[in-house]
Each structure stands twice: as structure tokens, then as C-alpha cells.
């Protein structure tokens, strides 16, 4: 079991390491920047309050004057929610479509494996970069925060990472569906990026527009709120369950489509 997942992980190993190191360093740079902001003679929160509500919502801006609020905005709302969400949707959109386009799927399916297994294991292989990134960046942030003589609740930090896993899986599942629906891999990837970005915007806009509020419920960003976790210490377990459920439903949808499809026509 899991031979395909292991193989997929190995194929992406170099990318995973590069991404983990890159974002780890980026996080450290952000953390190192905090003391100069903190000591500056400006009331940054008063300035932020003047921002339009949609912007505040989009970037989960609560406060920038505490390390938690600062991290929530700079790292988790921006890098985790937006950039990594896009990255995993993009990555997943190539899982099937790339192999079909490059004639690799023929060889894979000549093995005694079911299409469902190929699909499921390829999707599961996304867990490795997701977990690796979370582990590396959580450690980097914690060490960085201690290094600048600040403190952060380790449980909150752990939760902001742990609860991001269902979110990133849901973004990946959106990509996976596109990967089996769209035959050209680069088109699938572009649509995946566009879609996740639009969902991100939809949630930001709908939260500040009452009559559109219902629309926000379709966005995965609704169910994972790093600011709430870090600033208020409130964990949305129901949201995480919704995200996991959505990911499973999307994978099943992809499976339904992939199991009956002609490969590469």
C-alpha cells in the first residue's frame, strides 16, 4: 500500500525542501522586522482602523501592535491562507492532468492498480509538503519570536498550523477536481489558481456586505481564521471539520469523474 503516494512524494521532494526553507526564512525575516515596527513612534492600529473594512477583512487585520496580530496578518493571512492555498490548488491541479498530458498515466495504469487508488494516493501525497511546511515554519516562527524577546502561546501557534491542514487539503481538492475535468494541465492549473483566489476575495467582500454574506460560506477561507486563533485563542473545530468534509467530497467527485474517463483523448 501507498507505493504511489511514496513515489509521488519522492518526485516532489526537492520542491518541498525548497519551499519549506524559503518560507521558513521568509517567516524569520517577518519576525525580525517586528521590533522596529513595535518601537516606532506611530500608532499603527489607529492607522489600520482607517483602512476600508474589506481590506481589514481580507487580511484578517485585528492588530499589528502585538506579535500575535502581526504574525497573523503577515504570515498566516497572507502566506498561509492566500499563497499556500493557491500553491496547493495549483499543485493538485497538475496531479492527474500533467501525467495524462505527458503520457505518464498510461504506464501508471498498466500496473495492477485501480484508478481510485491512483487518485487517492496522489492526493494523499500532498500531505507530505503540507505537514513538512507546517513543522518547519512553526519551529522557525517560535524560535524567531523567542529570539526577539517576545513570547507567543505555543498552543495557539500549534493550532494555527494544525488547523491549516484541512484548509490546505480543501484547496488541493479543488485543484484535484480541475485536474480530472480539464485535459490541458496548464489550463487546469490556471483555473485552480483563479478559482481559489476568487473564493478568497468572495469571502472578504461578502463578510462586509450583509446581503452577500451567504456567499462567503462557499469559500474555504471562511472556515480557517488564523487571526482568531492567534489573537483571541479561539479554535474553529467545526470549520476544520467542514473543510475536511469538503475535501473528501471533492476527492470523491474527482474519483467519480476519473474512474469512467478515457485517458488522454
Amino acid at each position, binding site marked *: 500500500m501507498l*507505493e504511489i503516494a511514496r513515489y509521488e512524494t519522492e*518526485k516532489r521532494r526537492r520542491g518541498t525542501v525548497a519551499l519549506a526553507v524559503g518560507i521558513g526564512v521568509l517567516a524569520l525575516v517577518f519576525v525580525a522586522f517586528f521590533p522596529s515596527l513595535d518601537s516606532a513612534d506611530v500608532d499603527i492600529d489607529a492607522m489600520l482602523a482607517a483602512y476600508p473594512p474589506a481590506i481589514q477583512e481580507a487580511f484578517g487585520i485585528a492588530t499589528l501592535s502585538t506579535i500575535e496580530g502581526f504574525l497573523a496578518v503577515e504570515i498566516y493571512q497572507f502566506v498561509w491562507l492566500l499563497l499556500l492555498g493557491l500553491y496547493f490548488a495549483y499543485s493538485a491541479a497538475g496531479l492527474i492532468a500533467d*501525467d495524462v498530458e505527458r503520457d*505518464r*498515466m*498510461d504506464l501508471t495504469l*498498466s*500496473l*495492477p492498480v485501480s484508478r481510485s487508488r491512483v487518485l487517492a494516493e496522489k492526493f494523499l501525497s500532498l500531505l507530505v509538503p503540507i505537514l513538512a511546511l507546517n513543522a518547519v515554519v512553526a519551529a522557525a516562527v517560535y524560535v524567531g519570536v523567542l529570539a526577539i524577546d517576545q513570547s507567543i502561546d505555543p498552543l495557539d501557534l500549534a493550532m494555527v498550523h494544525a488547523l491549516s491542514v484541512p484548509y490546505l487539503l480543501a484547496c488541493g481538492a479543488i485543484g484535484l477536481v480541475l485536474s480530472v475535468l480539464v485535459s490541458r494541465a496548464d489550463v487546469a492549473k490556471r483555473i485552480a489558481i483563479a478559482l481559489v483566489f476568487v473564493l478568497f476575495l468572495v469571502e472578504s467582500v461578502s463578510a462586509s456586505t450583509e446581503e452577500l454574506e451567504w456567499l462567503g460560506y462557499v469559500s474555504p477561507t471562511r472556515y480557517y481564521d488564523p487571526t482568531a486563533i492567534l489573537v483571541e485563542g479561539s479554535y474553529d473545530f467545526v470549520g476544520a471539520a467542514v473543510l475536511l468534509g469538503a475535501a473528501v467530497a471533492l476527492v470523491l467527485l474527482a474519483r467519480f469523474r476519473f474512474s469512467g474517463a478515457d485517458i488522454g*483523448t
Partner: protein
Amino acid sequence: MVAIEVTDLTKRYGEVIGVDSLSFSVEEGEVFGFLGPNGAGKTTTIRTLLGLLSPTDGTARVLGADVRDEAALIEAKRRIGYLPADLGFDEGLTGKRVLDHHASIKGDARRTELLELFDPPLERVIREYSTGNERMLGIVQAFMHDPELVIMDEPTSGLDPLKQERFHEFIRAERERGTTVFFSSHVLSEVRQVCDRVGILREGRLVALEDVETLLNRGGKRVQVRLVGETSPEKFVTEGMVDVEPIAGGLQFTYTGEYNALLDYLADHDVLDIDIGEPPLEDVFMHYYGDGFERESESATPKTEALDA
């Protein structure tokens, strides 16, 4: 027992017909060549046999498993090897890693033995492979789990002549071991060297199903001969020569008669240069199945037997 049984198989891509009510079977232990020009539907047939495409109509069985039944086909695939025409290996990995991956799922009992015959540079990443090396990796992959049935799409394309010869030798040895081999080709000489029987496909239809011997007898030889002095086709032509055409300084024709008679006949002429070779596959079609095509396209249900008449 029957290794492959294709029954009224039809595959359409929208309006385009890939294969059209194809029926044939491949016996266990047989080496079967699937011959036809490019675009005839060979790859479509092969990919349907592996369950990559689902039939529009009709079906096929491989090692007893219906290709429409995924669970049964997966069981059968443990005993099937496949070499696709376009080899999609992961370019960033080494040949060894790819073989290890395939081995982890289907086994590799014969890997070492095969690597002595076909030796791609396993420690290098596949991106650096030549077409021939990639093809050899494909061959090892297709045979390493000691399958009962091996399905190959244009197996020798990209191999150098020496390796092609080695491959043909290998297939003959496989036949002795009792492996069933089904492969497509558009090269007549390749098929004649290793196959027991051939099916000829044209425009998605089976136009002939024959023993190789019969096919070759029908195919004849293409002869190009240059003679001293003027030669006109009318004066030169004799029994067994068809499609005589003048070429620079001589004549070209397809010869279907007794070879001794041809040599005797040529001995009476002053021959400057001669070349006797395989006729191009298209010529075999044109001369020996030409009428058949006409009849086939008019009748609703084609019968290959009609062509043998």
C-alpha cells in the same frame, strides 16, 4: 485458451471513428503482429485492451478479464506487461528509481536477466536518456514481472538496428517460453521476423488476418534492377512481375513468383545493379487488399474471410 479476444469492438471519439467493429483473437503462446499504417487505429485498440479507453460498443477480454470490468482487469494486469508507444517516464528520476517503483507494485523476478540484454544507464536521470535508452527501460519494465501476456505499441521505434535485432531475438525466445506477445508495428520486415500471425488494420477496420507465411507470399519482393542498354517495361516484363515502373537506368517491380525463375530470367540479361527487398507495407495493401477495401467499405458488416478468397 485465448489470451486476447476482441469482439465487435468499436471506439468513437465524437464523430471520429477510432476502430470500427473489430473482431479477432490471439491464442495463448502466440506472437501476434498488429500491422497498419499510422492512424489506422492500432494504438486505440491497444489502449482499449488496457482499459485506458472504454469501448463505445462491443468489448474485449484480456486473459479472460473483460476490459470494462475494472476489478477483473486489475487482477489480469498482474500477468500483463505493457510497452506504450509514447513512453512517459518521470524525467527527474533515475531509471533505477522508476524500475523500483514498478517493482514495488508488480514485482521484478526477471529484472537482472533483462538488464543484461537491455542496458539503459540506470543510475542516470531519465532526462539524460536517448530515445533508445528510454525504449530499453520500457522493455525491461514491460517484461520484468514475468507476465503471461505482453502488449506493445511500436516496440522497436527508436532502437538502433543492433538493439532491434536483439529485441527480435528476445521475442523469439519469449515465444519458446510460452509468453503471448501482441504488438503493433508499421514495419513489415519486423513482423515477418517474429510473428506467427498478423492482423492488418486500415482505417479502424481489420482487413486481413493471416499467417505470416501467407502474408509474405502475397507480399512478394520489391525488385529494382538496372540493366545495360535500353529497357522498356513492355519488353522486360514477365510472369510474376506486377506494377512495373521505369526508374533511372532501369526498372522497379514487385515480384510474386518463384525466386528461381526470377534469377534464371535475370541471368539472361546484363545486370548492372540489383536490389531485392521488402515491399513497403502500403504496397502490400494496395496490391493484395485493394479490392477488399472497396468491397469492405460498401458492405455494412465486413467479413475478413472475403479477403482471403
